[in-house]
């Protein structure tokens, strides 16, 4: 298998401004070419688009609108982890030798049909994600004594981190108290515990070890990949204090990269809701089980940016098909030392966690400089 690296990325501002999904994709793709002076459209062998939008043939449309005529072009849809699934598909094309250069672009709009999985009959009348996140919260509260104030620290930390992320949807901080007092949606969930659906796009360029030095001097290598699909229906998740797909995909990613949780310098976690970050910290092995709540308080008190340095989904917004790509770009920038005010000193190894539909599936990527 060929070694696969990441060259650069591009991200549009996450907003509620109505822009066509095609325009969003091309705006992010433009940044790839702006950031890679030696890259021309004819170099790109593969164009993959990541979205839950109902628009058809988007990989071909965005290729044509960007002047590319790739060998391979198609879309990838997998709800909230479409972005990292798309990156893994690009990795597979390159590592297998079918391609040398792959461009992955993801985009979503506020009214995405991917926000609610209507198919899931097991959710009954409670199809909206606020209900499954409330169930995870109930279970974690009971077993580990996690509090709603612990959850508020997740939001406060991620909103503060997002202030240094130029494309973030939110441009103001929220205190623990403001989050606690925000509109209650359920017993366990307030409005500011939730990520915000928005319009946005992100694109990333991958290349084989054979050609990557033509396009950048500081490639970031994809060394670990883990993916697991437990089910599609929420109620197959046996233990509601854990995300089984996350545990299994993390195990595979650590094994492939020969790394362990202790080696991770920077991590992007899928905080669709604040409880998710707490459970994921534990299931990725970054903290012992049951200590996610106390850990997020320490992150906030010490202004430690190790977790969700760009502000996560809660701080930056959640344009589904773009999210996993934006997470991956953040870890790349951290490992390249190009994260500006968000920079984690000396970061060498990073992790991306992206999941879908109550963690019925998860993707974990490990990157190294």
């Amino acid at each position, binding site marked *: 298998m060929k070694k696969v690296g990441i060259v650069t990325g591009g991200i549009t501002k996450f907003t509620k401004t109505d822009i066509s999904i095609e325009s969003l994709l091309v705006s992010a793709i433009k940044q790839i070419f702006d950031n890679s002076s030696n890259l021309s459209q004819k170099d790109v062998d593969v164009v993959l688009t990541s979205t839950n939008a109902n628009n058809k043939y988007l990989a071909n449309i965005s290729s044509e609108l960007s002047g590319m005529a790739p060998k391979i072009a198609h879309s990838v849809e997998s709800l909230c982890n479409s972005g990292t699934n798309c990156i893994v598909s690009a990795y597979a094309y390159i590592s297998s030798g079918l391609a040398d250069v792959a461009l992955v672009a993801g985009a979503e709009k506020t009214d995405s049909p991917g926000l609610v999985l209507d198919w899931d009959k097991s*959710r009954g009348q409670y199809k909206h994600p606020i209900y499954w996140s409330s169930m995870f919260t109930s279970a974690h509260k009971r077993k580990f004594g996690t509090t709603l104030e612990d959850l508020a620290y997740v939001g406060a930390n991620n909103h503060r981190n997002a202030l240094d992320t130029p494309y973030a949807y939110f441009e103001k901080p929220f205190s623990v108290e403001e989050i606690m007092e925000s509109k209650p949606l359920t017993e*366990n969930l307030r409005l500011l515990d939730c990520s915000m659906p928005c319009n946005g796009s992100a694109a990333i360029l991958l290349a084989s070890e054979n050609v990557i030095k033509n396009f950048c001097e500081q490639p970031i290598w994809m060394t670990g990949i883990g993916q697991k699909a437990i089910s599609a229906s929420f109620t197959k998740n046996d233990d509601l204090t854990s995300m089984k797909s996350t545990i299994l995909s993390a195990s595979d990613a650590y094994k492939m990269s020969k790394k362990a949780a202790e080696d991770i310098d920077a991590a992007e976690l899928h905080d669709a809701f604040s409880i998710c970050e707490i459970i994921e910290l534990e299931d990725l092995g970054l903290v012992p089980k049951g200590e996610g709540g106390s850990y997020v308080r320490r992150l906030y008190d010490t202004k430690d940016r190790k977790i969700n340095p760009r502000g996560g989904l809660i701080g930056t917004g959640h344009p589904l098909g773009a999210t996993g790509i934006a997470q991956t770009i953040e870890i790349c920038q951290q490992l390249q030392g190009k994260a500006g005010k968000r920079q984690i000193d000396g970061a060498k190894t990073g992790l991306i966690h992206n999941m879908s539909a109550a963690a019925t599936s998860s993707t974990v990527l490990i990157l190294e400089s």
Partner: protein
Amino acid sequence: MNKFEQELRNGNFVCGECSKCNKLVWPPSDLCNNCFNNVKWRPISKIAKLVEFSSKNDEYFCIAEFENQIRVMGKVENILNLHVGQTLTLVKCGFDGKEIFVFELAD
């Protein structure tokens, strides 16, 4: 519309059981997800175990488990103190574009 949805509209909660390997197939499907044989539709017990719950305003919603394997989310009525592991009775089910399951505490 499949048999599951037809029956649910009539207030009956049914599930497919494989005609060959006898597996209960959930979520509902015409084919067994173990051996791909056809399923026979049969009523599900009205007794369930409370797996987890939360509330919105004054309304409780829960995950309930039937026959030690089939889990659904539904509404819980007429209960003041809920505890995980309690036995529930399915008192109403239906379909209005979404599947509706309503539970009460079993006697």
